[in-house]
């Protein structure tokens, strides 16, 4: 049986998304960040996100009330000494994560399972900062967490079968469909999608088609809900570039070279939805401004 209280460290986009998802299934969440204020802001983000879902008929006001009542916030990691399971969701930086996991290791009882939410980093390396590598495992949630059914469960070299089974059951209990992934750069999702986005940028850069038409082609031709360029805008172009560079560094293959157009847009600060401009333009709420298509500034 899965833990009845889940501890999440990191109240950013991913941490709050995981918190909302867990709380929606009736489980309590303790959401921690570096300061009470940051954790509280995370809670506010969840409330705003749920308001948007209520407007889109997906949730009700009583769902929101129930979820908010199940989430407590804080900043003192010592509370983790009571945890059966901790999910870390801080920015995807190896040094920060290793430091934090060493700290978890000192606070949590030896049986506590430590989960890292990462899209590219090595679980084995994060686990090496602890004395319990068999109890360290990765869960790669995709953004927006409450809406995406998939979670990649990533096994490090020393992750035990028991830990994997525990997390697999936990994934099911929060209504996610897990796939099992052995540690390797980019896992399954990032490894396949990011080069595809990069390729779409090459097609645009080479003047073969417009951004709008490239997205239409992939949506109507292959049943994607979102076209690759709109998807890159949603993910953040800086993020996409970081993933490409990470794949390139790990696997040393030419095909993972970030497209020059991507590099240029990142340098110009056109990072997608979050800056209001990427391959398309967006208003302050993040809604696409139709008809005003930038062609991505031809190279």
């Amino acid at each position, binding site marked *: *049986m899965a833990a*009845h209280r889940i501890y999440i460290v990191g109240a950013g986009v991913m941490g709050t998304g995981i918190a909302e998802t867990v709380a929606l299934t*009736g489980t309590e969440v303790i959401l921690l960040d570096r300061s009470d204020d940051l954790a509280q802001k995370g809670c506010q983000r969840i409330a705003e996100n749920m308001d948007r879902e209520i407007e*889109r*008929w*997906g949730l*009700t006001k009583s769902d929101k009330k129930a979820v908010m009542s*199940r989430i407590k916030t804080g900043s003192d990691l010592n509370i983790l000494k009571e945890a059966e399971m901790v999910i870390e969701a801080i920015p995807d930086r190896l040094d920060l994560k290793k430091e934090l996991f060493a700290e978890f290791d000192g606070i949590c009882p030896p049986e506590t399972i430590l989960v890292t939410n990462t899209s590219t980093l090595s679980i084995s390396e994060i686990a090496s900062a602890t004395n319990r590598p068999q109890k360290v495992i990765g869960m790669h949630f995709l953004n927006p967490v409450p809406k995406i059914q998939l979670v990649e469960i990533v096994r490090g070299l020393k992750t035990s079968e028991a830990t994997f089974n525990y997390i697999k059951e936990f994934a099911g209990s929060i209504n996610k469909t897990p796939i099992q992934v052995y540690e390797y750069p980019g896992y399954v999702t990032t490894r396949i999608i990011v080069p595809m986005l990069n390729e779409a940028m090459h097609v645009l850069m080479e003047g073969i088609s417009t951004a709008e038409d490239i997205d239409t082609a992939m949506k109507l031709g292959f049943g994607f809900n979102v076209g690759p360029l709109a998807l890159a805008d949603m993910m953040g172009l800086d993020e996409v570039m970081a993933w490409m560079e990470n794949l390139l560094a790990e696997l040393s293959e030419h095909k993972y070279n970030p497209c020059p157009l991507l590099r240029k847009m990142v340098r110009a600060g056109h990072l997608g939805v979050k800056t209001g401009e990427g391959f398309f333009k967006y208003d302050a709420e993040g809604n696409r401004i139709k008809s005003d298509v930038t062609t991505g500034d031809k190279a």
Partner: protein
Amino acid sequence: MKVLVLNCGSSSLKYQLFDTEKQFAMAKGLVDRIGMSGSVLTHKPFDRPQAVVAGEVLDHIQAIDFVIGMLLSPNHGVISDKAEINAVGHRVVHGGERFTDSVLITADLMGELRDLISLAPLHNPHNIRGITAATKSLPNVPQVAVFDTAFHHLMPPHAYIYGIPYLLYKKYSIRRYGFHGTSHQYVARKAAETLGTPIEKLKIITCHLGNGASMTAVDGGVSVDTSMGFTPLEGLLMGTRTGDCDPAIILHIMAQEEIGLHEANTLLNKHSGLYGISGLSSDMREITKAAGEGNVNAKLALDIYCYRVKKYIGSYMAAMGGLDALVFTAGVGENSVDVRRLSCMGLDCFGITVDDEKNKGHKPGIGIISPDGAKVKVMVIPTNEELVIAQETERIIQSAKAGV
């Protein structure tokens, strides 16, 4: 026989301990917030004041242990030994086509119950969790499952088959099942008893108007049609559910609002009905109050609600070829003078009349609100699903014993 009746939800457990000889509840209560902090048990023995106890209740097993502890407690208890509990009766929402009667629970049967989860994903898993928990807490006590759908199993195919390809009925068991069966059955029998006529000779329409609402045509004691369908969404307008609705509407909305299955499901089940139309509340008491104060949308919601009940009265009269008694039950049916009045308004030509004085003057309990000598008896009968579950449990256990 002393029967513990359990109704398990996702994070709650309602219970009653019934003495079936004396036909009364020795104690009743509710465990709320199971698996969360601040779980609360509210317990009411029949002869003493209500007790409220807070504690940590992590799952349904602990909840049932908590309940048994209360039943045995020197201050609030009603029994002195766990062994006094002779049987456990469980409310199970969906019995599918497999379960047409209450059943004694065995290990083999649990598998079959699990197979039905796809038909009632919101309810059956919790009911099953309750059964598993009770088996652990009371290992040697026989347990019986009583299904919400069972009373409707004699409906004729022309009432339960939908106008979709027959292949889909065969493939996915898509058909009308109907719900609130124990309630419809109970009030129909009570009506016959009150009128002093054998139920076999009566044509009765039962209106279970609660948070969920459904109507049933009971001909000769048998449910021949009912307004809820494959799921509890069809039929009457409800607190937050649409009831009858052109299925093409939802496809259109999904395209217009660019929403998916989950959102569409929530829209129909949680954002609609009295709440969706009035924008105010899903509670009929608040709707009637606001309508009385001139709130136009509340008035509209009330009118739609009652008009829908009226249409079903007409269609079930036609289905049965007549009517002897019309029964109102459950929260709204037992308490809303306005709903009873408006639903029957203008039906005098069918022999259905509500006497305003009797309707307004109705006191809790069984009552007849049609004028003396009226062709159709309009009745208010409080439902008691727990009693039916207790009686069913006793019946199944005794017939199992007789079989041995």
